């Protein structure tokens, strides 16, 4: 069973529906015991970094996420759910992230005629092909919606990048901890394959 962490973030239903489409029966919850008892955990998210951290803390979910990671449970952060795993974000100066991974979230520069937020389909490159991207062709397209992006401190955990004026670290993998900046739940067949790959990791 996969637990989707409910902390009032926006895209929870889409993630739930995509998993249901793939034959899973996910539970949307903010109950620590239920999350820690799951086979896999998803941290979704749309919105602002500071608000999201505040909500995670208010529900005591920051500790729950750290425990999931400590136990090496299959864990997938999506969009803001990726960003929250790192040290902090230029979006909310002074707010500490969950910091289970090293790196910072910085603003996408608006020079060069590229619009911010980065909304739409962009292709991925795979510097190290991670388990999330098995059974996919080179440079598949996925759907992004974000204004801030990851610069991971340790590039060896970066499994996908995207080019948008800057090089965006689009996905990371460390042990059973996965995260992607883009939205697999809105990325058509490619996204479904990525979620299937996560489900595979959950099933071990």
């Amino acid at each position, binding site marked *: 069973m996969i637990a989707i962490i409910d902390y009032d973030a*926006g895209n929870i*239903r*889409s993630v739930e*529906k*995509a998993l*249901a*489409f793939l034959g899973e029966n996910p539970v949307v919850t903010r109950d620590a015991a239920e999350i820690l008892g799951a086979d896999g955990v998803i941290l979704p998210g*749309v*919105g602002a970094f500071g608000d999201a951290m505040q909500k995670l803390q208010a529900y005591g979910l920051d500790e729950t996420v750290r425990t999931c990671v400590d136990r090496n449970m299959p864990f997938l952060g999506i969009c803001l759910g990726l960003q929250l795993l790192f040290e902090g974000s230029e979006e909310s100066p002074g707010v500490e992230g969950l910091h289970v991974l090293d790196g910072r979230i910085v603003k996408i520069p*608006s020079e060069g005629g*590229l*619009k911010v*937020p*980065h*909304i*739409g*389909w*962009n*292709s991925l490159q795979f510097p190290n092909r991670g388990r999330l991207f098995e059974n996919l062709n080179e440079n598949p*397209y996925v*759907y992004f*919606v974000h204004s801030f992006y990851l610069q991971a401190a340790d590039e060896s955990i970066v499994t996908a990048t995207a*080019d*948008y004026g800057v090089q965006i670290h689009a996905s990371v993998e460390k042990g059973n901890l996965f995260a992607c900046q883009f939205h697999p*739940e*809105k*990325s*058509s067949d490619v*996204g*479904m394959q990525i979620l299937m790959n996560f489900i595979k990791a959950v099933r071990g």
Partner: protein
Amino acid sequence: MYTKRVIPCLDVKDGRVVKCVNFLNPRDAGEPAEVAAAYDREGADELVFLDINASADSRATQLEWVRRVAGKVFIPFTVGGGIRTVDDFKAILREGADKIAVNSAAIMNPRLISDAAEKFGSQCVVVAIDAKRRADNSGWNIFKNGGRVDMEMDAVEWAARAERLGAGEILLTSMDGDGTKDGYDLELTRAVTKSVNIPVIASGGAGKLEHFYDALENAGAEAVLAASLFHYGELEIRQVKEYLRSRGVSVRL
């Protein structure tokens, strides 16, 4: 590589997709989730659904088909038609829609744009504009109520104001072009894309492959929308995208 988008538009009435030969004579064209899934398979980048008779009474019907689409199609989709309040936004987004298009309601109450953007984020607030060239050719006016009421407000100014209020995207329909198949109104599209920094979806007038190219490459649109052309199979989405790629436009294929 970042891509330009090709978006089919579906008109929905009483929970069914309809093809409008003219506004008075809609013909049933299927179940929204089925039609949406077919467009996804053909390579549509996003979908726009416009509920053409949405009212308070039909809200439940609307939520029902939105839920079905979201359970079956995993590309971003926008819902428009009859959305008047932040609570309407919330209800539709909860069912799995990604963006909400507002037109008349935003004209009558521009705060709806800022309230919704603050609450749900700019990325889900699409301001739809129906624009028609003024008789003296000095620019374009915006119309509300499905193009029936001239607001005597300038379309380019309204688009810029919508951006300042927090709109994340402009869905720009040329009423002069709509249904003609003579091409998008490039002058209008260019005027708006130059005055805002948010993406503009060009709509109204597509009839040939070149028209899509012109709106994207010569008028600065980020996305192109068409309805009847795709419904009637006169052009296929894949065909449009292959054409665009052959002319050097980056698209998802």
